């Protein structure tokens, strides 16, 4: 690293709150060489985003940099006047933020948003800037860039908007690009496209990239080195591959092992490593190692003395007394954490059976005589869920996953088709006839913040279904049941009178699960139950779901976009595309050898370091006008003319159903473990 672009030394950023200063970034140091890529990983609240904003000097009150130094291309950023900083921002150093849906101004055309930094920094005259904007959009993979520049942001999908944001970042050919969770809000296939793009741009323009993510897999697929942050500190810094293979800080170890890996064989034990507890209170940090209260490997010294960030191996730094003393952290996976999974039940008696399910949502007329447009959300789905089984549903956004969940629970009424739950046809049952079934089939939603009523104590929230279904009388009986429910999901029963805002996201999702369990259902439909959570919390919730299934014989319909999690948790998997089943198979077989090309590219898109990827181009077509024939043929790498007729969902091998004219013909080196 001869010529560092960015040198950060002992950076300290605090939030001046009424309760005292919160040390969000507490002595962080790292450097990035010209053209280098560095990742920062950590859970929410670890200080990674505040670090990024500190580097850009874009902190807002009450955050303030109180110590350390930031040198950018040799110049001290902390000593610069506001106008000097402004002339650097968007010029030599650029930043891309997480949410592409809100990062673009909705009332301004893409063109102006792209050219304003070019013109504003005096690098290009307006006509030249326009040409450059068109060129950059094309380079970012936007089709018909000449036309696209004059559009407004709402005319673009999320992935397209993030490409526009990237183009904006590269507007003036910066020396450093800071990308804060740039792909977190996107589908896995779109994420793969963008990560590829980032890697190419780094190679092509020699722009140094600082990539911030909670996902080590994402960082691993772009960055050579990674910094792991915990409670405002760097706890480990090393080559990304080294951290993934052999983490030297227990927190990094927990991060690596909390996530199921799609490229490693499944063990008999499906519990994930999860560390209990929460990050320390930033107002009251422990005097020893900040991770010690949650650390499974701690020794006496850890709670007494704060460890320094020191070299544990050539080129590897870790802030841990244990590994600095030479101890090696164990390999996880079947490491005796208990809970061996029962063998999947034979699929003889389906609890839920869906045939030819269709749901169309007519849109309101645009004018008096215009034809009504119709969203074709679900277009004929067949599936069975066996009693005690976990069926995973995967697919990109807009493939009909959530609509399917709302149909089988009869929150929506289907347009056509049959839904049989435990022998009873419920597709056209009246609300009164559905009511008793609600007891037996419950739902857990994605957003634990939006799905709990903020004005009800959790005790009331949990007692409500019990009283409504006459399972418990209001008062002592309900209170007792609620206490038991909280205990079952690992929460303190004394917390019944608290309100949702007093809980963390993970705790709220436990409450949502408790609410679903209150009526002792046979089946739980979980719609992305862990997507909004940090990886460690995800592992906790997944472990809880596995435990509950074993104890209560629950049947799960598990909807997720994270394929590694689905592979880990589910017995069988159904892959949806544009409201149709593309493939349905036992999980292990499906991931080992996908028969449908769509399944293949989905699996390939999961960010896994060191693996060749097939990047799926484009985005799913509009659900307003689904294509004739095979819905996937427009993006399919092996499409043939025959694909203009819709292939039926047929049994290609025992227990494996696939809707493709060429099952198993698409394969590539990166697939399979």
């Amino acid at each position, binding site marked *: 690293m001869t010529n560092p672009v960015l040198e950060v030394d002992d950076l300290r950023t605090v939030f001046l709150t009424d309760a005292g200063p919160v040390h969000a970034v507490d002595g962080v140091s790292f450097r990035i060489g010209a053209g280098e890529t560095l990742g920062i990983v950590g859970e929410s609240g670890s200080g990674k985003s505040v670090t990024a904003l500190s580097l850009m000097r874009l902190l807002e009150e009450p955050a303030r940099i109180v110590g350390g130094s930031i040198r950018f291309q040799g110049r001290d950023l902390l000593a610069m006047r506001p106008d000097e900083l402004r002339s650097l921002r968007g010029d030599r150093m650029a930043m891309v933020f997480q949410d592409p849906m809100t990062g*673009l101004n909705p*009332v*301004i055309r893409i063109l102006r948003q792209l050219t*304003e930094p070019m013109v*504003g*920094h005096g690098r290009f005259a307006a006509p030249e800037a326009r040409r450059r904007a068109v060129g950059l959009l094309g380079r970012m993979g936007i089709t018909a860039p000449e036309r696209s520049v004059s559009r407004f942001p709402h005319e673009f999908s999320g992935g397209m908007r993030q490409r526009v944001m990237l183009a*904006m970042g590269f507007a003036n050919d910066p020396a450093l690009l800071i990308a804060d969770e740039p792909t977190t809000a996107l589908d896995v296939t779109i994420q793969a496209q963008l990560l590829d793009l980032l890697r190419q741009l780094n190679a092509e323009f020699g722009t140094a990239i600082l990539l911030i993510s909670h996902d080590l897999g994402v960082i691993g697929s772009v960055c050579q080195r990674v910094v792991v942050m915990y409670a405002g500190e760097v706890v480990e810094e090393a080559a990304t591959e080294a951290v993934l293979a052999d983490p030297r800080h227990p927190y990094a170890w927990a991060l690596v092992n909390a996530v199921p890996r799609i490229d490693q064989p499944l063990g008999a034990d499906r519990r994930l490593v999860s560390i209990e507890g929460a990050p320390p209170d930033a107002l009251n940090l422990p005097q020893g190692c900040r991770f010690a209260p949650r650390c499974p490997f701690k020794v006496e010294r850890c709670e007494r003395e704060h460890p320094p960030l020191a070299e544990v191996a050539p080129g590897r730094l870790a802030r841990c007394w244990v590994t600095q003393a030479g101890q090696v952290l164990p390999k996880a996976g079947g490491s005796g954490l208990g809970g061996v999974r029962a063998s999947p039940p034979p699929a003889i008696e389906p609890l839920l059976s869906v045939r030819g399910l269709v749901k169309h949502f007519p849109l309101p007329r645009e004018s008096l005589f215009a034809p009504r447009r119709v969203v074709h959300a679900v277009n004929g789905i067949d599936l069975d869920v066996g009693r005690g089984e976990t069926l995973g549903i995967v697919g990109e956004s807009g493939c009909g996953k959530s609509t399917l969940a709302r149909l089988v629970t009869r929150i929506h009424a289907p347009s056509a088709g049959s839904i049989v739950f435990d022998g009873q046809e419920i597709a056209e049952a009246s609300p009164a006839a559905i009511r008793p079934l609600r007891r037996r089939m419950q739902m857990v939603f994605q957003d634990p913040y939006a799905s709990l009523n903020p004005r009800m104590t959790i005790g009331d929230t949990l007692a409500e279904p019990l009283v409504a279904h006459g399972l418990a009388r209001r008062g002592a009986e309900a209170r007792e049941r609620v206490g038991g429910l909280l205990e079952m999901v690992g929460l303190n029963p004394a917390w019944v009178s608290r309100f949702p805002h007093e809980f963390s996201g993970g705790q709220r999702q436990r409450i949502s699960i408790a609410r679903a369990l209150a009526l002792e259902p046979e089946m739980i439909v979980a719609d992305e139950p862990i997507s909004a959570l940090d990886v460690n919390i995800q592992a906790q919730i997944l472990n809880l779901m596995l435990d509950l299934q074993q104890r209560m014989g629950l049947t799960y319909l598990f909807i997720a976009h994270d394929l590694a999690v689905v592979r880990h948790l589910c017995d069988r998997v159904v892959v949806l595309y544009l409201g149709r089943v593309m493939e349905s198979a036992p999980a292990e077989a499906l991931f080992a050898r996908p028969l449908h090309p769509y399944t293949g590219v989905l699996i390939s898109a999961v960010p896994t370091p060191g693996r060749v990827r097939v990047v799926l181009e484009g985005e799913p077509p509009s659900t307003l006008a689904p294509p004739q024939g095979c819905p996937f043929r427009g993006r399919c790498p092996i499409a043939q003319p025959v694909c203009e007729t819709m292939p039926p969902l047929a049994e290609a091998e025992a227990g494996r159903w696939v809707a493709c004219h060429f099952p198993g013909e698409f394969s590539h080196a990166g697939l399979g473990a």
Partner: protein
Amino acid sequence: MLRTVVTRLAGAAVMAVLATLVVFLIANTVPGDPVLAQLGDIAASNPATVAEWRAKWGLDLPLWEQYLIFLRGLAQGDLGTSIASQRPVLEDIAQYAPATVELASIAFVLALGIGIPLGIAAAVWRDSWVDAMARVVSLIGVSSPTFWLAFIMLAIFYGGLQIAPGPGRLDPIAFPPDEVTGLFLIDTLLAGDWDGFHDAAAHLVLPSIVLAAATIGLITRTTRAAMLEAMGQDYVRVSRAKGMRERYTILRHVLPNALIPVVTLGGLAYANLLAGAVMTETVFSWPGLGRYTFRSAAALDFPAIMGITLVVSVTYLLVNLLVDLSYAMLDPRVRR
């Protein structure tokens, strides 16, 4: 776009007629008899006089027939004859409307011209003295009763300091300009009458401030809130990260988004100013629609009340349509 406008206009016409039906029914069910109001106690005690008077105004006909007659007239552009003034209602309205339109328009310009910049400044320098001042201004504007404010203003600037003219549209001894539009500011200019223009403008100052006061308060608060909301959006941080000047970020990124809710409020406020100047017009002896409305209502002058209802509802509907159209200009997401 054109099709939307035509559809909306047709809808507005239907709505306006429906509004007259509602008013017609309400006016005929309230206890109160135009006979008493018009003829006085003595004449009303003579049944023959009353019957003759009722027959003259068609009040002896069944309700539905009375309404039908009104509709038939409406179709021919005739709003009937005012019982009180004995003149065609349309003529009455045409006589009183310009004074109100002039007053309300100046008040509207004042409200926007003061409210929007004040709201922007209050948001940009949040919690500073500007913000505090904006808060006081809007609090006074929203919470002072109009008649009170009107008297105070007259007492200070006309009675006390004697720097403002008294009530009325012009000096009592001045002659009104030749009528072209009925708006004195414009008519005096057309006539090249500079003194008249100056006189008319001076007479507008106090009433328009009084009338605008509440609206200034509302627009200031709304602009400030909308600005603060827009300033918290990600695209503002993105603009700063692009190295845009703060002034540019506020004016080009924040303001266009913040104006969207202000436009909605502004449209409603203008319609309110047009229809709601009764108090101000009364105190300032302003010969406008507000006073005409008040007099007609007190006299249970049905044809006049119906005519005013129609005018007011058409105004509201047109302003609403304009608001919706300007929405499409401001916000591309609403455009089709």
